[in-house]
């Protein structure tokens, strides 16, 4: 119990010191406050109002020079506590309060202006209890602009891109051969299928868990056509478990066509493609089981993948399959690269599908995008050099 007594004594001492301190603090501000109170802060000056540029009207930008008493930061010793923005339609008329802003501020957006009406603005500097008003601004009208000139280069670039995409699509439609570079992952398909044939084991093709409205799934199904062509030639056993019934239908058609084109319609069998379940983890668990039981020699993951990518690729790797993956999902690509033998990275998936399907609209778009990439590459290379030597700043064309 002794400690408590000692605490009490010291508490008394503290209380004494504390009250002295508090009293002194109470006394100190009095002259300061008095001084601040008697004189209002000096008013803001040079109030200018301008129509906010490049918009649909309805907005006016007001700028001013802050009060001479404003030290620019929000602090207790700042005489100015903030500003109020006032607006009227006549210079000597009634001014309405629009809004408040903080000390140190020198601009305000009035977003509630009507177009084509003259407005006058005043800025009021707020002291602790007193205030002072600036002179009114010159009249200003909010106007809608026809063209947002700050976006002229965007327009130009968009136009160039659009025209080149349309141009290349048309070129492709008229039967002109458009060149696309080799894609490493695709070249490995034949090896993988060959190995599966040698070992007499199955090949699994996983087109992802999204539906046919997804560009990546469509690309995946296109690549399936190529894989099926090779399995037909090698007489390898192909199996495609899907997670959407529409994907199942599309895959069946694709494989059937590939097998007849390869001259082996006899090898095609509807049961090569089957539907498991729509549910993400349900599908994952089922495919996982298939991998473990069948021990496939090769596995393809091509399409849209989410968290299941990791689980499936791990199991595939564990059963010793050659794995070729491809997806545009940036968050899943690292796991595919680490766990698979070949990976089509992002756009390579689309390029591969364009290359294989020879679909004019895909090929043409790919070419058009290359024009865009070329422009950006040019800017980076030339722009960096010019800037390093202080010759010219190309960046103005990208703003």
């Amino acid at each position: 119990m002794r400690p408590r007594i000692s605490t009490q004594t010291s508490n008394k001492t503290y209380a004494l010191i504390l009250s002295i301190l508090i009293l002194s603090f109470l006394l100190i501000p009095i002259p300061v406050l008095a001084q601040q109170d008697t004189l209002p802060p000096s008013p803001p000056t040079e109030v200018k109002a301008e129509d906010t540029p490049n918009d649909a009207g309805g907005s006016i930008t007001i700028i001013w020079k802050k009060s001479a008493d404003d030290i620019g930061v929000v602090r207790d010793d700042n005489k100015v506590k903030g500003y109020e923005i006032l607006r009227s339609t006549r210079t000597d008329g009634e001014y309405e309060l629009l809004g408040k802003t903080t000390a140190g501020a020198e601009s305000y957006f009035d977003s509630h202006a009507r177009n084509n009406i003259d407005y006058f603005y005043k800025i009021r500097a707020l002291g602790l209890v007193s205030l002072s008003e600036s002179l009114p601004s010159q009249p200003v009208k909010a106007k809608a602009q026809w063209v947002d000139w700050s976006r002229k280069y965007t327009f130009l670039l968009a136009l160039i891109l659009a025209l080149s995409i349309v141009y290349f699509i048309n070129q492709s439609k008229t039967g002109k051969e458009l060149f696309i570079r080799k894609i490493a992952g695709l070249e490995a398909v034949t090896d993988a299928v060959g190995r599966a044939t040698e070992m007499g084991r199955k090949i699994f093709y996983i087109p992802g868990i999204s539906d046919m409205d997804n560009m990546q799934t469509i690309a995946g199904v296109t690549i399936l056509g190529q894989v099926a062509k090779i399995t037909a030639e090698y007489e390898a056993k192909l199996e495609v478990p899907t997670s959407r019934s529409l994907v199942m239908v599309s895959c069946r058609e694709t494989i059937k066509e590939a097998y007849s084109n390869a001259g082996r319609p006899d090898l095609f069998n509807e049961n090569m493609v089957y539907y498991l379940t729509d549910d993400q983890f349900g599908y994952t668990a089922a495919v996982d089981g298939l991998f473990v039981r069948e021990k496939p020699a090769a596995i393809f993951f091509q399409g849209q993948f989410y968290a299941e990518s990791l689980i499936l690729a791990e199991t595939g790797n564990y059963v010793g399959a050659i794995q070729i993956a491809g997806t545009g999902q940036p968050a899943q690509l690292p796991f595919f690269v680490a766990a698979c033998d070949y990976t089509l990275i992002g756009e390579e998936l689309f390029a591969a599908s364009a290359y294989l399907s020879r679909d004019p609209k895909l090929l043409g778009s790919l070419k058009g995008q290359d024009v865009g990439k070329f422009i950006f590459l040019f800017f980076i290379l030339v722009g960096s050099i010019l800037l390093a030597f202080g010759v010219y700043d190309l960046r103005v064309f990208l703003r």
Partner: protein
Amino acid sequence: MRREVPLAITAIVGFTLIVVYFIPHPPFNHFRNFFEDLFFIVAAFAIWLGCLNLLKVNADRFYFKRKGWPFAIVVWFGFFLMVIVGFWDGRGFMNPGTTFYYLYDILYYPLNATMFSILAFFVASASYRAFRARNKEATMLLVAAMVVMLGRVPFGYYLSSWLPEGWRLGNITDWVMDFPQTAGQRAIMIGIALGIVSSSLRVLLGLERTFASGE
């Protein structure tokens, strides 16, 4: 009608939004605002469509005694539990203390959070059994990954505190993230952006009709 109307709607709405980006003047901006307001309402109905479709699929599953049909009842139960309580609680249904808030806390929250946390286990087993430095690319990836993993947690600080300031794992991680990582990420970003631009254009020109045709 089946094909032309959707393509026309897409083109009108889409091109208006492109035009208003360059020409902010009325009436284009009013059209934009109106189309966007319509979009919100339609998107809300699309969410309802998803919910109703879920109910329908599960009703079918139950009725035709498909695989796992008893679980269809659980789906229905969960759905109506939240909907009825949500409607009963009225507009303030999200306020702390309501039944809806309670159900969210004891059902939605643990289920959703645990769903994603099980991936931690799979990352662990994959890092042991599948992530191999099988080629130069994969090696670079794994090295970068380990530097970042260690450099981002306090453990990395203790591991490298003997190094001079500025050369510790944390600093290296910051440098990797700020420069090479940013560069690689940016290259991917620009590529994808161009892909999006071209597919948007195809949709607007009516060249991409997957959404407007077939079923």
